[in-house]
């Protein structure tokens, strides 16, 4: 288990439990890998199709294959290399941590998050969360590209009012993940500090490993943008947008291509 990265002794809760790996008899592509495949595939396709060229067509073809695999849960490559990522043979979980300060009282910040129905307002990959009982909730996320949706159940496994919430997807959920959020008063009346840890099970094995390497940063960015939207929503009551980003969406691959221009700020000579 990876160590929690919130280092200050005060904040180390009992280490966040790993999500429980789940499997399905008829799929050799685990669901998290399916989502990643579909997202990756769509990204590659749109990149590949934007301009006609042979390398780009190849990229588009690879993208289409990934989407297909994401949608069907069956991967010919996985089958060929006898690799079954859906069994998740105790893979290392991936962990994302982020902390930020919200200029609102702790109780207000806690309550907004604890009302799980609020989560899709700022978590872009979710379409709906419904509370089943005081511990259990039902989560729905559309698969990008409108090719279906995935659903899973999660339960709160520990909770201290106005201080922390720890949750985990229930075994045999279709997405294996767990998370923890801590709430703390920020010094000098600056509101509330939140510390968030999210763990999920990435696909195992060589291909999954490569994919994970490519998409963990994207996933990480997504979680961070979600939390930024949380702050903005709770502080201002809205998620501010500009004409160039009219829906407050997570930065896309195209936006990130701005990186190229920014590279000059990283000149090794300076």
């Amino acid at each position: 288990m990876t160590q929690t990265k919130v280092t200050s002794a005060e904040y180390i809760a009992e280490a966040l439990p790993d999500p429980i790996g789940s499997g399905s008899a008829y799929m050799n592509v685990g669901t998290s890998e399916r989502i990643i495949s579909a997202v990756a595939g769509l990204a590659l396709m749109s990149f590949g199709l934007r301009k006609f060229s042979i390398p780009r067509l190849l990229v588009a073809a690879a993208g289409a294959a990934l989407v297909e695999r994401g949608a069907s849960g069956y991967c010919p490559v996985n089958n060929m290399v006898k690799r079954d990522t859906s069994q998740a043979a105790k893979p290392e979980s991936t962990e994302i941590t982020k902390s930020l300060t919200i200029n609102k009282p702790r109780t207000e910040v806690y309550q907004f998050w604890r009302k799980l129905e609020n989560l899709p307002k700022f978590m872009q990959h979710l379409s709906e969360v419904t509370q089943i009982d005081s511990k259990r909730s039902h989560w729905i996320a559309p698969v990008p590209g409108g090719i279906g949706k995935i659903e899973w159940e999660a339960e709160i496994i520990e909770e201290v009012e106005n201080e922390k919430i720890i949750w985990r997807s229930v075994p045999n959920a279709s997405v294996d993940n767990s998370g923890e959020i801590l709430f703390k008063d920020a010094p000098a009346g600056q509101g509330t500090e939140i510390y968030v840890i999210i763990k999920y099970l990435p696909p195992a094995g060589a291909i999954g490993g490569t994919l994970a390497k490519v998409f963990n940063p994207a996933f990480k960015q997504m979680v961070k943008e979600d939390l930024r939207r949380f702050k903005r929503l709770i502080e201002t009551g809205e998620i501010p947008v500009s004409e160039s980003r009219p829906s407050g969406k997570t930065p896309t691959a195209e936006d990130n291509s701005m990186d190229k221009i920014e590279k000059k700020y990283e000149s090794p000579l300076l």
Partner: protein
Amino acid sequence: MKALCYNNVRDLRVENIPDPAIISPKDMIIRVTLSSVCGSDLHIINGFIPTVKSGDVLGHEFMGEVVETGSEVRKFVKGDRVVVSSVIACGECHYCQHDSFSLCDNTNPNAFMPEKMYGDTMAGIFGYTHAFGGYSGSHAQYIRIPFADIGAFKVPEGLHDDSVIFCSDAFPTGYMAADMADIKPGSVVAIWGCGGVGQMAIQSAWLMGAERVIAIDKEPYRLRMAREKGRAETINFEEADVLEALKDLTGGRGPDCCIDAVGMEASGSGFGYAYDKVKQWAKLENDRPLVLRDAIMACRKGGNVSIVGVYSGFVDKIPMGAAMNKGLTFKMGQMHGQKYIPQLLEYVQSGQVDPSFLVTHKMGLEQGQEGYDMFTQKTDNCMRVVFAP
């Protein structure tokens, strides 16, 4: 509607683009009556600030008339005349609530970009690249004002547009420069740059009780304006050694307060200028910090250096030893318009400052390229070109 858009480096075009619409209930739409060029636009047009895309509408210093308000706008109704701060602030975050509006946590939808470039995000700015939010600019017939209650200010009856428009950007910037320089009665103030921002810094220095104001530039007509409108003493840096002149003028002490109102595109002569120009051209250095170097060297021991001239990336050969050993204080930043504008409107209303002398040219958007060429090349004694869209 018509809008003046960036097409390529030093290539602007008037395009027909869709009218803006209200997106959030706190938005309002105004019909732009005046929109000014600003030295900051030049950094974008000349290609020194990245993340501008062709089709982006430029312009951030403006005023207009309210044509539509969102359901949560409380301060304004249709028909109100308003002047708007060039930085967009939410009014709710810790920074906004401590009057540091340009540091707003929440108004930059592209926060991930400055986070990477600068380590954190700051406020969005109208018409000022995607790294600063990708908001549509004011060189257009209409513009959407997010967080209208926070960023827009009603223009008092009886004031002429020309006197009011610079309360949007140049005046608060110059005023903040003077404020950060901590000018007190008796202070000797040196101001580099006699553009709109420098001229407003001169006016503001007097408001804060400066004993003397010394202005530095190379354009004779701008220096003349500093003398005639700003009662400043002047140094032409092409004709005199600025450091020597400043010592000679101040009893050998140097100015108490040094203001950089030039920024990263400073010009000069000699080795330092050639060195920076070559590095900037080769993209090894973004900014030419000639003025910053001079300000540090000239400043009196224990004095204040206040920077409002914009820097965007890395600078080179900053005399840190001088700054450290002389015990200087530095303050800098994008201006916090929302903090200063109400007070500045009062100065204008009472007649203590009339910034209208900065308007040297008025044009339509169609002459946008021409206007920016004049402003860049400083032809026809151009101080600020103002578009009436």
